[in-house]
Structure formats: structure tokens, C-alpha cells
């Protein structure tokens, strides 16, 4: 099983700063971490490899310091890692990101499964997983909470839904996103850390990926962040007065008026 895991480096804080000109994230000067959901993706990749054999390739699109999350990945189960980095990628929305990731995965060529975390904690859109599947033209399953079996080019998984789970069977290759209920990510091992420290992580630029310049970065973004703000809390409502019987009658009338009953 050749597995590709997509990881993203995100700010390790809820205090995000926005560049007023581009309305995108200011990444300098903030402690960075690997997107927590991606650690579950990587762990699942490592477990599949341990169970069925194969290889785990970790990829990440980001500025040069995103290499840190790839090194961390090498110490916790990834066999190799590739950084996708180019100034042309800056300001990408999820569409441009998915396009770039898809170019890289196509360049990797031999893969059976792409695993992503369900969403990032900075963007929170959960869009890259499904967009990636569309770009790669392969099936997609979201919110996977368990991989039950992989056999003969097919994979059976549990997809977490609000009140339980569904069992889905998909042909491979496919893209899945995983939820944190799927596993407990391992801590690094000393040998893994040593391997990660000395590993060579190649960087693939826009040129090496052969991207269309209009499909990456700000130019390739179909959406533009206009404004990011905390919505004002508006308190609306009425406290019903009177005896309990009066309040109940008042409530019933209001519900009737609103045509709710």
C-alpha cells in the first residue's frame, strides 16, 4: 500500500493575525505546529503500512519552515517526505491548495490511498480533502473513523455521522479524511528522530510541479477573504413574566404566531 499523507503547518495559537492588504494569515513570529487532525492521518497511514506493507509519503504545501512538520512526520511513521514550496503558492485558498497538492500526488504517481485530516484549525473549511479527490478524479470518503479492511483494490471504512457511523466500501485509489476518533497518534521514537534529523527532504517548486501559474497562489484562488471578524453577539429574546400558567399560555401563543405549532 503506497500511502500519501497531506500535512499542514498551522499557527499554534488561536490569536491569528491577518495581513490587512491580502486578508491572509501573517505567519511570521508565531509558534507553528502540525495541524492536529493531520497527526491522526499520519498515524493511520503508518498503521496501514505496518499491517499491509508499503510506504508512507508525507507531503506539505507551505513556506520553507513547513519542513518542520515533515521532519516530525519522518520520526512518527513516514518513510519519506516532500515539501511543496514556492513564493507562487502564497495566498492560496483551498482550491489553489488542492490543485498544487494534486500536481504533487500525480508526480508521485504510484499511490493507493491519500489521507488527510478532516480540516485545519486555521482555515476550518474541510474543503481540501474533497477538492483534492475531484482534482485526482478518484473516490472520496470524509470523516473516516475506522479502516476495517483493505483487500483486492477495495477498502471498507466507517464514516462517522452525527448519530453513529456508516460503513462505506470504496475502490482504491481514493482520498479519505479522518477524524480524531480513528486512533491515538504515536510519540516519536529515538531512532525515528535520528532518522528524521538526517533525512533529506526535497522541495518541489512551481516549476518542478509544472503548475499553471493561474491555478496557484492568490491568482489561482477562486475565493478571496474579504473580512475576518468575530461576529457580534446579539442578544435577542424575551423573558416571559407572570405565573407558570400565564407563561405557558404566552409561549403557546408565540409559537402559534411563528407558525411553529
Amino acid at each position, binding site marked *: 500500500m503506497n500511502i500519501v499523507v497531506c500535512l499542514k503547518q498551522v499557527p499554534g495559537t488561536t490569536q491569528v493575525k491577518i495581513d490587512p492588504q491580502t486578508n491572509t494569515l501573517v505567519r511570521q513570529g508565531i509558534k507553528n505546529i502540525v495541524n492536529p487532525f493531520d497527526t491522526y492521518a499520519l498515524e493511520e497511514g503508518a498503521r496501514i503500512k505496518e499491517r499491509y506493507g508499503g510506504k508512507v509519503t508525507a507531503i506539505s504545501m507551505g513556506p520553507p519552515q513547513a519542513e518542520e512538520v515533515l521532519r516530525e512526520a519522518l520520526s512518527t511513521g513516514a518513510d519519506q517526505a516532500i515539501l511543496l514550496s514556492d513564493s507562487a503558492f502564497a495566498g492560496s485558498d483551498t482550491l489553489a491548495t488542492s490543485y498544487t497538492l494534486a500536481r504533487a500526488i500525480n508526480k508521485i504517481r504510484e499511490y493507493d490511498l491519500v489521507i488527510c485530516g478532516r480540516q485545519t484549525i486555521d482555515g476550518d473549511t474541510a474543503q481540501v480533502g474533497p477538492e483534492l479527490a475531484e482534482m485526482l478524479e478518484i473516490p472520496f470518503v470524509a470523516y473516516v473513523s475506522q479502516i476495517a479492511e483493505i483487500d483486492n483494490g477495495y477498502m471498507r471504512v466507517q464514516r462517522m455521522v452525527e448519530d453513529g457511523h456508516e460503513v462505506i466500501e470504496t475502490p482504491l485509489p481514493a482520498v479519505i479524511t479522518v477524524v480524531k476518533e480513528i486512533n491515538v497518534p*504515536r*510519540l*516519536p*521514537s*529515538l*531512532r*525515528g*528522530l535520528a532518522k528524521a534529523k538526517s533525512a533529506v527532504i526535497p522541495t518541489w517548486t512551481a516549476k518542478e510541479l509544472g503548475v499553471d501559474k493561474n491555478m496557484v497562489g492568490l491568482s489561482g484562488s477562486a475565493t478571496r477573504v474579504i473580512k475576518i471578524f468575530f461576529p457580534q453577539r446579539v442578544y435577542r429574546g424575551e423573558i416571559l413574566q407572570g405565573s407558570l400558567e400565564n407563561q405557558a399560555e404566552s409561549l403557546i401563543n408565540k409559537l402559534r404566531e411563528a407558525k411553529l405549532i
Partner: protein
Amino acid sequence: MEYFLSEQQKTIKSLARRIAEEKILPVRAELDEREEFPWDIMKDFADSDMFRIFIPEQYEGLGGGCLDLCLVVEEISRVCSGVAVSYAASALGSFTIVAYGTEEQKRKYLPDIASGKRLAAFALTEPTAGSDASAIKTTAEKAAGGYVLNGTKQFITSGGEAEIYTVIVLTDKARGARGASAFLVEKDTPGFSFGKKEKKMGIRASSTRELIFRNCLVPEENMLGREGMGFIMTMKILDQSRPGIGAQAVGLAQGALEAAVDYARQRVQFGHPIIALPVVQNVLADMAIQVEAARALTYAVAKTIDSGAKQFTEESAMAKVFASDVAMKVTTDAVQILGGAGYMRDYPVEKMMRDAKITQIYEGTNQVLRGAIASELRKRKARRE
């Protein structure tokens, strides 16, 4: 304080801290309450290659030194001393094999210890022989196929959980100090069983049991080193492991200091956090000084050993004595700082105080070790270069 740790040592230390905070901290109170051996955490250590640190590279280890081991023990002990000693005991149990084992013995036992598949332990103490190790009564008599062991070991750390035991037994009573030998005995060897698990004051996550030998036949090839070298090997091995106890004590004291400072910063009495009171500040300052001094001494001894020193009995005794006395004092002071709350089992410091006591007792009581230091002083004119 800068201790000039190598990159490798910093990595080891930070990974040990992560395991301690993520895996041990949430369960330490329960392990203590239920006196449960921390098998899940041993697995976490194994998965992270922590047992490989004290095994040479050619036997699937990482070939770390004394300081590397001390760094790990300190970080674990900062969170739970019982778990720390369970880890350190496997190191102690491996030292005899590394130092005195034949190639076959090393290849047979060290890889399993390195991978964490099997734990090791060391067995010397008996009911009649604590500080007076020479008073052991367990015998090993030559027989067909090997040696037959008879006797009982007492208070053995990881007794019943470990699978590979280095046992010190009398092979020739008449020869006195040259009358003991060391044997490797595996769990489940016929004639080898365990007594009841001891109920202890502290380090309750660690299992302490008697080892019972009744006509236990141990193969010839399981003798470690040469016949008659048992006590000499023991003395050298304990010299090597004492800085580890020093590290255990330092970690424990560090955890207690942190708990005390955290509490003092938020506990308000007389309108201010109590850390504003000079009486409290004096206690905390002394605690901090002692912890740092104990750490500096322990690390210095570990580095001395790592530099290849041949003789370090005195230094290793100093590290253990000083650090364990510091741990007892600092943990007691921590309970005092937390006051009534410190006495309650809901807070972590009373456990730390209970855990500290044993560090002054095992691996050579502090009284015996002071005697050993004085002995060295008497031997020379106490003039340093």
C-alpha cells in the same frame, strides 16, 4: 542552568518529558492508589526506544551513557518516581550482562531488554542480608547440567514482572568475600517462584516481591562472569547505577518544587498569594538551591563515569546520598508549602514525599554510603591535586 547537553541528550530528555507528561501524568495517582505495575507505560517506553538507551549498539541498543540514562530517569521521576524506578530497574538488571556477559549471553538477553520485550532485574538483598550483603544465604550448588539454587531474595524491585534476573548467590561459603557468584535466571524456570507482593509506603507503581528458589536448576552457561566474583561485580554495578538513583531523587525533588511554587503563586491568604511572604520565599529558595545542587552533582558524576573513569565509588555514593537527602527534604517542604491541601491525596505532593524516603534506603543506605566515602577519605590524605 546550562549543563552543556549534546543535541542527542536534549532530544532524549525532551522525548522523555513528553512521554512523562502525556502518558504518565494522567495515570500516576491511579497507579499509586491501585499499586499497579505500569505495563502500558513500559510499552510506551519500548515504542519510543527508551530501553535502547542503556544497551550497546551491537545488541540493538543506542549505546547511551550514564548521563543519557540519568536524563531519562529524572524526567520520568519528575512525574512519577514509581514508574521511573520500574524503568531504571531494567537498566540495573542489564548492567551485569553488559559488563560481564559472554557474547552468547549478551546476544541472548540484551536485544529483548533493548526492545522492551522483556524487563530485567537485579537480586541481592535477603532477609538476613541488607546492608551486610556478605550475609546472604542463598546457595548455588554444582549439579549435573548446571547449578541448583536454594534460598530467598527479599524486596526485589520488579520481582514477578521482570523476566531476566541477575541473582547473587553463594557458590562457596568458605571463601567469604570470594564466595559469591552471579547467575542469570529466567522467569518460569522450574523451582523459581515469587512471594507475595509487598505493600509499600511509596513508589507503589513499582512491584516489589520475594524471589523463592527451591532446587532451581540453572544451566551452567547462565553463570555471569567468573565464579567467586559475585560481590566484586555487585559493588561495581551498584557504583554504576547510583547516579541513576541520584537522578530519580533529583526528578522527584524537581516535581515537588514545581508543585510548591505553582501552589504558592495562586494560594491567597492575608490578601496576597503566599509566595509574597518572606517565610515562604525562604523555604522555596532553599528548595530550589538544593535541587539544582543535587542535579549538578549527579550530572557531574554521570559525566565522570562517561569519561571512562575506572574508579568512582566515592563520587557515585556522593550523588546518591546528597540527592536522596535533598529529595526527602524538598518533598517534605513541598507538603508544608501546600499546607492542609498538601496532606490530602488529591494533591500530588504527599505521594512525592512517600516516594522520596526509599531513595535514602535502597542501593546502599545513606549510612553505609557515608561509611564508604569516609573509607576513601581515610585511605588517602584527603589532599586534592
